[in-house]
């Protein structure tokens, strides 16, 4: 066989291909590809652009032009107004009230829900007991139950616990509804930790909490970051629970924003509305742009939340 190939005459044409294969940078296929991506990028980026430019225009300019034009005269007045003067019914202290309410709801909700769920996930992956898988399965199927089914009885439970209309009540609701996805997240993460590590720690005499705090916690920083991103975004963006389980003076930001923008009385101040919308979206946006790949990991992991 080797003999045969040696006798085959080689194609020794001077122009024969040699060296690096020439690349066609502007092949029609590539142009199509980038053009399609670009068109989609415009569709996705447009609303953010519109929010920004509208919020920087004065009302007269808005009435004359369309939403897409850049501001001729940049003004920050709408932002100031949205933050501290816009009215919702009786209160006229702007979104700042809702912002602080949301912060007050957010911090305990995120901390408690993650603390509870991480311990759940840890117990489920390393300390299974009879029935633990059943409860876990109920939890996961529960994630698909429309919230509407559980809204009213939960309101009754909160009332019985004297938590209805309070921050504590809302924190509890967020902890409950964050539990399926977070538990899944932590359970899968802890299950991926080599079982031998857990065994070694038991031989070394560490107990349930010892292993959790000394071995597992220090190892699972990334998953905690993912969980925090998931929860901060989710809780900040919540509207339904906020509107049902809180009272007007502790309404979270989303509820207040909707009340400001969709209030029927008075002249519509579109620039203020867009500034308010943008301010409300700012927290999750900052988290999104700052966390990059971790956010992607979080939503891919948290996909079941639906």
């Amino acid at each position, binding site marked *: 066989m080797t003999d045969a190939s040696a006798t085959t005459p080689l194609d020794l044409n001077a122009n024969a291909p040699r060296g690096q294969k020439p690349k066609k940078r502007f092949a029609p296929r590539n142009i199509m590809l980038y053009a399609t*991506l670009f068109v*989609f*990028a415009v569709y*996705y980026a*447009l*609303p953010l652009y*519109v*929010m920004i430019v509208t919020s920087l225009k004065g009302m007269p300019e808005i*009435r004359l032009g*369309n*939403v*897409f034009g850049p501001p001729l005269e940049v003004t920050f007045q709408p932002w100031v107004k949205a933050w501290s003067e816009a009215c919702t019914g009786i209160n006229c202290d702007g979104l700042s009230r809702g912002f602080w309410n949301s912060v007050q709801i957010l911090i305990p909700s995120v901390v408690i829900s993650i603390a*509870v769920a991480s*311990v*759940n996930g840890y*117990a489920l992956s390393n*300390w299974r*007991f*009879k029935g*633990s898988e059943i*409860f876990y399965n*109920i*939890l996961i199927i*529960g994630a698909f*139950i*429309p919230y*509407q*089914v*559980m*809204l*009213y009885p939960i309101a*009754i*439970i909160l009332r019985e616990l004297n938590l209805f209309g309070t921050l504590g009540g809302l924190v509890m609701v967020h*902890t409950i509804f964050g*539990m399926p996805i977070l538990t899944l997240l932590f359970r899968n993460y802890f299950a991926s930790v080599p079982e031998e590590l857990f065994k070694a720690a038991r031989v070394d005499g560490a*107990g*349930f909490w010892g292993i959790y705090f000394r071995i597992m916690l220090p190892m699972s920083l990334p998953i905690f970051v993912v969980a925090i991103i998931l929860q901060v975004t989710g809780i900040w*963006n919540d*509207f339904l629970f906020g509107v*049902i389980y809180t009272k007007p003076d502790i309404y979270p930001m989303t509820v207040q*924003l*909707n009340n400001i*923008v*969709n209030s029927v009385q008075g002249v519509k101040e*579109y620039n203020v509305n*867009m500034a308010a*919308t943008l301010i*409300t979206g700012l927290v*999750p*946006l900052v988290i*999104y*742009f700052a966390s*990059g790949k971790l*956010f*992607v990991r979080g*939503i*891919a992991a948290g*996909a*079941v939340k*639906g």
Partner: protein
Amino acid sequence: MDDKTLNSQKNKRPTRLTRHLNAKIASVPMILTAVVVFVGCSVWTIVHSFTKSRMLPKLEFVGFKQYDRLWSTKRWLVSVDNLLIYGICSLIFTLVIGFILAALLDRKIRFENTFRTIFLYPFALSFIVTGLVWQWILNPDFGLQSLVRETGWSSFTFDPLNNPDIVIYGILIAGLWQGTGLIMCILLAGLRGIDEDIWKATRIDGIPIWKTYLFVIIPMMKPVFITALVLIAAGIVKVYDLVVAQTSGGPGLASEVPAKYVYDKMFLAQNLGQGFAASTMMLVMVFIILIPYLYLQYGGKRHD
């Protein structure tokens, strides 16, 4: 090492209950949530949907009367219609757009991160923000319609939010904007999970790229597609905030959805029975979607 040594051991026999007691104590919140909230509250609502509760829940059973009323209420029928249209369109477009974007991003392009960041950022925003910004863009006097008219096409009309016939498509545009990024990400992860050697094999066999996607890649990604499908479907049934922010159900009743019907009946109209019946119907819808999925996902595993 006989019975004497055995007895001298002061080994306490760990009983079933106290074994790993800490783990059980730590699981109490989970057990309560699973049993009291997810099972208990759901059953409570289902049971009360057969009563004549109005302002307050009371256990006076009336059979399927609430459901009869529900299915003869125009607002509910419109809601279900809207949900069907929104659901089917959303399912198709989200999957198609999500897959196209994922496939494009998977072609080893430049600026992949930038594009992905742009496609996904809406997912970080709430439905309230989404609804409000699209309400503004679709505003007939200042938004898309006026922009096109300025270019000279003065008869151009695109005012979905004020036209009862197409209002649901206006909401769809906003919903797609918010949600396709997630599906793109999931499908992209699925594409990345496909063995490089498959691509090499199809190149050697000379199969065109589009054919490779259609006949090789997509069938391989079936589990990922099923996950994406369930996600979209479960999300659709819950659509609420978006409608509240963008149209408040208007014009008239044209963009009502079941979730809003439930909320309004329960917390505004003080017609609890209707709210319970409607929410039970939502639960039924979810389970119609979910059961085949659960069967596919977990039914097969029992055999080993």
